[in-house]
């Protein structure tokens, strides 16, 4: 479904990604862990081309997307993205946040967009909040609206960039539940997170990244219980406490 081949990315003198290669099968949920500054967010942004890789190839559903002649706007509709800081459009209500892409990017008529948005908001458990503005919602509710907004574009895969890191502890559960349900329904997902419970229960594989490289790859058991690499071991021991 998603294939990344030898991706390199520099920000000025900083070498952020040093040759990343991996595959994600359809309906797989991959969790990426790693210390801050290891390039996890940049890797996700390279997949939907919010950041353009310096070299290397990105394939989505068999299509080589980071080459001339492919519109970035089209690529980004194929993969939904959820951000650490939610980034809901502050001037729009919850339901308008979900419908904006439908009406303005996909050109779907307004009433059909509303109908679809209602279904999605119900799916993330926020049917009652459709007319609330982002500033009137809790962090967990905002993040669930953000998930509905990404799902509205009917993406083939979803990218989650630390979706629960900015949340108060009591709201983390509700967001993770929505994500786990998505994974069960067969959505292809790449999740950057440090929620070990989520990683063990939902992830089909875990990638450990450090300093712009994938250091180790394996099931939750491999990574958390018997890490092979020293760096993985020291990182895991820190986050498992």
């Amino acid at each position, binding site marked *: 479904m998603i294939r990344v081949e030898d991706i390199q990315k520099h920000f000025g003198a900083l070498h952020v990604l040093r040759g990343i290669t991996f595959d994600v099968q359809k309906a797989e949920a991959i969790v990426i862990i790693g210390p801050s500054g290891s390039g996890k967010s940049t890797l996700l942004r390279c997949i*939907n081309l*919010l950041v353009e890789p310096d070299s290397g190839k990105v394939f989505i559903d068999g299509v080589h997307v980071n080459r001339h002649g492919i519109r970035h*706007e*089209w690529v*980004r*509709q194929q993969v*939904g*993205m959820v*951000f650490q*800081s939610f*980034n*809901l*459009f*502050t*001037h729009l209500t919850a339901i308008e946040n979900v419908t*904006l*892409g439908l009406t*303005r*990017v996909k050109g779907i008529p307004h009433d059909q967009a509303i109908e679809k948005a209602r279904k999605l908001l119900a799916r993330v458990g926020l049917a009652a909040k459709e007319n609330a*503005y*982002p*500033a*009137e919602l809790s962090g967990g509710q905002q993040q669930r609206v*953000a998930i509905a*907004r*990404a799902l*509205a*574009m009917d993406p083939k895969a979803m990218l989650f960039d630390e979706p629960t890191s900015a949340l108060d502890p009591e709201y983390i559960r509700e967001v993770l539940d929505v994500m786990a349900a998505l994974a069960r329904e067969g959505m292809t997902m790449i999740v950057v997170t440090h929620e070990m419970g989520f990683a063990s229960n939902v992830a089909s594989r875990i990638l450990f990244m450090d300093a712009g490289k994938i250091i180790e790859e394996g099931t939750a058991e491999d990574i958390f219980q018997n890490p092979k690499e020293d760096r993985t071991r020291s990182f895991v021991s820190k986050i498992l406490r």
Partner: protein
Amino acid sequence: MTNWRKFLRDRWRYFDAALALAVIIGSLVYIYDLLVGSRGLDVAYITRNYPLYLHAVFTNVYATTIAFVVGMALGFSVGWLRTARTVSVAKFAASMRVEKRERQEAPSGSEVTRRLLVVLSLLWYGTKYVVRRIGDGFVEIIRGTPLYVQILFASSFFIVFLPQYASEGILIGIIALAINTGGYQAEIFRAGLQTVHSGQVEAARAIGFSRLKAMRYVILPQALRLIIPPLTNEYIGLFKASTFLFVLGVQSEISYIAQHEGFAGDVFEIFAIVTVIFLAITVTLSFVVQALERRFRIPGLGIEQVKLPRGVRIARVGG
């Protein structure tokens, strides 16, 4: 005694407003007395002549409004331009060197296409760079020189290069005002656009919005809300500055003062008329803008004006 206190406490804000009003009126009366107290205001002159001044002020309103709208388009374009990131010459040269080395190491595509791509990107970044610098220069020149001089300059420009329009004072005036307010509004728009969080753009781009559509549907609606107060300020400033147009022969209140009456005659009456008309317009405008701000306020953001039901107080001071 207690009743009196309760009465005072319940109606304190009315006393407050009344007191403020009394101070303002008192000082106005004092100034009036200092200036015209000895001879009295010539009310007959005011009732006879106020339509003349009203007409002159409406010329200002009309010139200001056209100039403001044109300036808004100019200001938005220049302001947006000034948020653009340009690549410095050194960086561009460096990336060209990297590109050349990579091509030599692993040649792909024909030499002609390569050359063409280099020329095209040079053109693109070069144009962007030059246009951006012109925008910077425009804003600095407009902000850095007096409006009065700019109006005279516009007039001289027309006399020298387009003499057939040189007598169209109002046209020249509107052009000069539009360019002037465009420079100021460019800064207002730039501030507004840059204040909208970068995450908003990223989110819009992530669901497939183009740059232009992200601007139209996500950034601009938020930026416009932020810049309503400075834009109002700019409009009022421009409105008052439009009285300068008398130097172009546009009939304005100041030219009446100078031509018809002279400063020796009914000068205070003229000031009284002009003050009242200007205040009436600007105060009305500020009420309209306040209503606009309330209408477009984003719920939950910023400080909300608290309206308490009757009889409920936030805190009771004393007993």
